């Protein structure tokens, strides 16, 4: 390995060392605050190394055909890093309130972020699988972390079984492709789109099933609501953001490298999944009374929107997906984050719990509404720019049907998002005790408030972010 490659790997190495540091610290001295500060420090060092790498970027370094550190990876790593920093800040007050033993959470958190980071840089089936497994295995435990709640344990077990099954699909798909092409790296597969035989076709299809599970695309979405509901709110946010975002990144890389968007059946299957996810996500969300389930269904719909941009497969696609992901990350983490800042007995889960919150908790409600408006795609929020970008990509390629479906789904979505906001606006006399009483973690609230400001900022002056995203390239 050359020293240049080593330099490029520094951020990943920092991330890999973080769990080790935590592990040693926990075994020496068990202290929640200490380990939290250490975890934050690790992420900050990681971020600093990324920013350094970004600003001194010269060329992409491909390490042993396994990992690539280019601008695309760096951007997604920065996104992951920022998201995990925010998630840490939200998790701390939540864990203080809801768990007895909190230290191991940070350990698992760090390994899951490490897994996601590998996924983002992966250009080879081996690293893809490795990253995915590191991520998933950490998640099994994190979902069940609040073990005093039955839902949480149930969710952990469900995720274990389904994620394992989907990994099996993925692995088998890779094996089938390898039998026919003898290749495991994305670049090695690049020429073989038009010469694909039965085995590789089946292989790609099986890999799609695996990816579909991870992204919770219809028809592989059924696990999502139960797990979002069962998992602690910060973990649900992690599944919705980091876990899905990293898989989207690797999917873009895979498609861009192999040019599989030239396969008609591939595009048809993706389009079907996109439409089904958007519609099913929006329609099923209508009936939900539980906020976390509602957010689960809405995240299914959002992944459908992202898929549209991927299907479009033009220069705009990567930009649109990335911008949308940024907006979606902020909004979904912000929404789950808001739910986790309350120090109530049990979680704020039901929509009923938000009754009259606008009058009892005006600031928190405002932030929460901003997140929801962003998810609806109301102008002046990041979500609007994201949706605009996706529709732009779709119209550019002439995907009229998909664009129309997006609009229909958004309109259905409007109804259930508004329902939540409407509940918050109900008269103060009916205000829910759960949200009105008790304290709100200052640090947690400050974090989500900053997210709220970011939503507005990226919605009003998106130019800088767009320029940054435009520079990452990796076009189709």
């Amino acid at each position, binding site marked *: 390995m050359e020293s240049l490659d080593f330099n490029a790997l520094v951020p990943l190495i920092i991330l890999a060392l973080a769990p080790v540091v935590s592990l040693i610290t926990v075994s020496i001295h068990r202290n929640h605050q200490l380990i939290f500060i250490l975890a934050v420090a690790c992420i900050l060092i990681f971020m600093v190394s990324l920013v350094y790498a970004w600003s001194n970027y010269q060329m992409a370094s491909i390490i042993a055909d396994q990992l690539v550190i280019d601008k695309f990876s760096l951007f997604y790593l920065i996104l992951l890093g920022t998201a995990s920093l925010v998630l840490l800040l939200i998790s701390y007050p939540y864990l203080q309130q809801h768990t007895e033993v909190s230290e191991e959470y940070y350990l698992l958190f760090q390994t899951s972020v490490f897994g996601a980071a590998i996924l983002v840089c992966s250009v080879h089936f081996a690293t893809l699988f490795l990253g995915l497994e590191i991520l998933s295995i950490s998640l099994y435990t994190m979902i069940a972390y609040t073990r005093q709640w039955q839902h949480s344990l149930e969710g952990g077990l469900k995720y274990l079984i389904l994620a394992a099954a989907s990994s099996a699909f993925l692995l088998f798909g890779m094996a089938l492709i390898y039998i026919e092409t003898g290749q495991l790296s994305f670049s090695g597969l690049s020429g073989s789109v038009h010469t694909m035989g039965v085995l590789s076709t089946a292989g790609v299809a099986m890999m799609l099933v695996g990816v579909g599970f991870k992204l919770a695309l219809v028809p592989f979405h059924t696990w999502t609501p139960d797990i979002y509901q069962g998992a602690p709110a910060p973990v649900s946010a992690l599944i919705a953001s980091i876990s899905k975002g990293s898989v989207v990144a690797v999917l873009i890389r895979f498609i861009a490298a192999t040019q599989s968007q030239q396969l008609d059946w591939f595009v048809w299957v993706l389009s079907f999944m996109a439409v089904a996810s958007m519609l099913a996500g929006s329609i099923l969300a209508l009936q939900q009374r539980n906020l976390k389930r509602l957010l689960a269904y809405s995240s299914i719909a959002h992944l459908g929107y992202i898929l549209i941009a991927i299907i479009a497969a033009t220069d705009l696609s990567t930009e649109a997906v990335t911008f949308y992901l940024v907006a979606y990350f902020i909004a979904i983490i912000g929404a789950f984050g808001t739910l986790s800042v309350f120090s109530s007995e049990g979680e704020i889960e039901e929509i009923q719990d938000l009754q009259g919150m606008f*009058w009892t908790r005006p600031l928190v409600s405002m932030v929460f509404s901003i997140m929801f*408006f962003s998810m609806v795609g*109301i*102008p*002046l929020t990041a979500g*609007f720019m994201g949706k*605009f970008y996706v*529709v*732009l990509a779709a*119209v*550019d390629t002439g995907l009229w049907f998909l*664009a*129309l479906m997006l*609009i229909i789904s*958004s*309109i259905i979505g*409007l*109804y259930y998002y*508004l329902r939540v906001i*409407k509940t918050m*606006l109900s008269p103060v006399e009916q205000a829910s005790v759960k949200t009105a009483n008790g304290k709100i973690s200052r640090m947690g609230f400050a974090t989500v408030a900053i997210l709220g400001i970011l939503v507005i900022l990226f919605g009003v*002056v*998106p*130019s800088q972010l*767009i*320029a940054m995203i*435009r520079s990452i390239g990796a076009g189709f």
Partner: protein
Amino acid sequence: MILAALIFILLFGGALAGLLERRIPGSARWISLASILMVTALIIRIWWTHSPDIMGAATSAMYLVLRKTWIPEFGIEFHLELDGLGLVMIMLTAFLGLISVLISWVQIKIRTGFYYFNLLWTLAGIMGVFLAFDLFLFYLFWEVMLVPMYFLISIWGSANRTYAAYKFFIYTQVGGLLMLLALLAFYFIHGSQSGDYTFDYWKLLNTSLAPAQAKWIMLGFLLAFLIKLPVLPLHNWLPDAHGEAPTAGSVILAGLLLKTGAYGLIRFVLPFFPEAARSMALPAMILGVAGILYGAKLAFAQTDIKRLVAYTSVSHMGFVMIGVFAFNALAMQGVIMQLIAHGLSTGALFVLAGIFYERTGTRDIEKVGGLWTTAPKMGTAALILVLASLGLPGLANFVAEFMTLAGTFAESRIIAVIAALGLIAAAIYSLRIMQKVFFGPEKSSDIRDLSSVETVIIASVVFLLVFLGLYPAPVTQRVEPVVQQVVSVALPDGPGETDQLSVIKIKPAHGKP
């Protein structure tokens, strides 16, 4: 910069009102009043400095232009322009905004800070719609005015407010999103033709579209505007929203929000897609006429005074529809006049309806009667406004409807004749209000007559209606260049109808096309 100030004063005023009300109770309304007055003063200044008498032949030029790069990656600019049409519309916005603030002064007792925040932000959105000359910006403002309006209806509305607010939001959002889709298609077609990807109004105006493309893209825009207007099959949201909204909300909805739809037709649909629009003219006019009669019929059947006034809006907006699609200068002038006159008269009628509800505790016109004896000022006000609404000569609405009908007559006699029946229907439903509420046996106990502020509000509206009814030139002169431009684009072979303008002496002597 004045143009940006018009919008940002309202935005900042709203934010300030929302924040300060918690610290200093009662401050919100004063801040709102101050910001609206500032905006009004600015507009009057513009009106003064850009008077056509001074500018002479240069009337057709834009009064003010503001361009700032905003999102250069997509060719989006913060691009505002003001011409005669825009000036007239923002004047109306400021005036009705002022009325809304004043009428809310004592009516709104809960959550006043947030209320004025929403009120001012709605007005800012509307102001932006009338000023934006970048289509992305236009879309943005188009959507921005919805959310605060949704809050206005769903928090301060009456009993059935939740349902009404949903309906309003979803209807308009459907239109908005379809417009976005059409807008993007337009953007790409223009971009691929010229290599210049831009949302600039003037550049997009030069796009040449294949007939099929033009038709579909136009439909996207048209739907958004027709939902807002609203036109017959798409009007369903209107009675609920108008009926349930608080008084100021109804005033803004009827007086301004509906006008944005008409404005969109004139500013965008006709100039962008002249051929496609002409091919749609007959169905559009038929829908307009159907709206006139259907709205009038339903208005007659209502017992809820606010819903009644709401349906009269459906009826009156039918005139807008036929006038726009008549494609001649006279009808177009009539439409713009109608926007102003209807905005003023219906706005004031909603003010009265709000006062009526506040005093009697009911909106049912069957439950009251003989109010004239106890509230003569209210009765007089209602009488004048109702007469305006039914199109009594001498009031602005008459000028508007007459011009529209005369212009339409030149294009399609049948349509004009049937539409004219709407005037009779208007007389029936309008006089019914008077008869039920103010005449007949006295059913309710004493009610308080108009207060001095309310009297001033109504009197100023009445003054404007009479003034414009007798001397419509201030409006018609202002919008003349825009009308000529729109009509000449829509009819490339030369506007023959302009002669008629001089026949009825509305066209100013110096306003040469």
